[in-house]
């Protein structure tokens, strides 16, 4: 019985590792994507609410995919807007809204995969940039109800 228990535990660990249980996103200011004195992705020069995204615990950066969209609540109506995702270095990206979201409240919904592993994040955007203390990291892409909750919290 003990042997069976051990085999089951090992199988569970192997399964979670294969599924990338620790794969996650890290969100920071855009300058975190640029390494002073390092070589040299071209500087990504955009104004406005840029932020950086880093893939954590992905064992192979060429298996990474990152997608996202800006979701907003403008005068009580839901709206979506595209975003730009630029690679700064392997596993590190700079995310920028394509156009400034000057009206309403907005959150960027990110979804990422590393092989079969998934991760997501909801990154609220304020007038001075992303709202670090309101970022939500998720083990998968955010659902519409989760996005709605964040938008309503930004729009009291």
């Amino acid at each position, binding site marked *: 019985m003990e042997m069976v228990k051990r085999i089951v535990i090992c199988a569970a660990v192997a399964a979670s590792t294969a599924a990338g249980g620790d794969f996650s996103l890290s969100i920071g200011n855009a300058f975190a994507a*640029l390494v*002073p*004195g390092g070589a040299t992705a*071209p500087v990504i*020069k955009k*104004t406005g609410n840029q932020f950086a995204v880093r893939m954590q615990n992905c064992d192979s950066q060429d298996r990474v995919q990152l997608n996202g969209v800006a979701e907003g609540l403008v005068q009580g109506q839901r709206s979506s807007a595209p975003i730009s995702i630029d690679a700064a270095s392997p596993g590190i990206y700079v995310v920028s809204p394509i156009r400034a979201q000057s009206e309403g409240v907005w959150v960027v919904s990110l979804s990422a995969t590393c092989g079969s592993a998934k991760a997501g994040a909801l990154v609220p955007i304020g007038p001075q940039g992303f709202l670090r203390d309101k970022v939500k990291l998720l083990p998968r892409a955010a659902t519409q109800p989760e996005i709605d909750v964040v938008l309503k919290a930004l729009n009291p």
Partner: protein
Amino acid sequence: MKFDLPLAKAPDSIWTAIEASLTEPRSSGSGHPYLPRRLPRRPLWIAALAAAASLATAIFIWYRTPRPAWEVVRLDGSPSIASKPMAAVAKIGVGQWLQTDASSRARISVGNIGTVEIAPNTRVEVVAARPDQQRLKLARGEISASVSAPPRLFFVDTPAGAAVDLGCAYTMKADPDGNGLLRVTLGWVSLEWEGRESLVPAGASCRTRQKTGPGTPYFDDASPRLRNALADFDFNGGGDPALAIVLAEARIRDTLTLWHLLSRVDPTAREGVYNRMVDLVPLPNGVEKDRALQLDPSTLKHWREELAWKW
């Protein structure tokens, strides 16, 4: 046994042959094998004329070759270039000064890598305009630079430090004594002076002082108590009391300031700075305490890169 060789006179034909070879014209492959080839004689004046012509050509080419110069646009009032009022659009070359008065402003296009706005009451000089280095000197006043270029291509010199663009936008102020303030709005700027370096990211500032150079960077939303104590520490010999205030007031993102202080405090105070940093942000993988306290460069670099995600 000693032998005396008999003396013999050389036949006259030898001397005749030698004299003949001295006077006959030489051609390639011909002539006496033991005598040097004689150069044909030319009048000296022809050589002098050729040299003068070469020199004149070189001067002409140098004069006509366009000098690197930056375009300047007048934004307000009447800025001057090389002490003369400028037109609406003008050029400024290496070694020339641009000056604004209380009511004038201008914008310089730095090659094709960015722009620098010159605020009122400002005096700047173009120091270099080369493909590998674009350099401005700020004698006094304020500029706002926005540069999109590989790092370490654009520099602004002040009496108390050089701002080195690492991909950024920033404002730089300097007074006639060389005291100044750098404020970064995008990317990073390195402020350097005599071996001292301060790395300043967007949202942060760094003071400079004549004869001291760059101070310690701080985020603009740091508490006034922290900022005042930091200025005391950097420029007024504030020592341990000032450091204690900085440590007490520090938040997570003030680890930018603490990271710089690691190498600027006395070794006896270094562990206190380290401990405060670790209280605020757990030590990342790959950073070891001993190496950090020894100021190992690669350890500090890695630590800074990890901390930047929290700033």
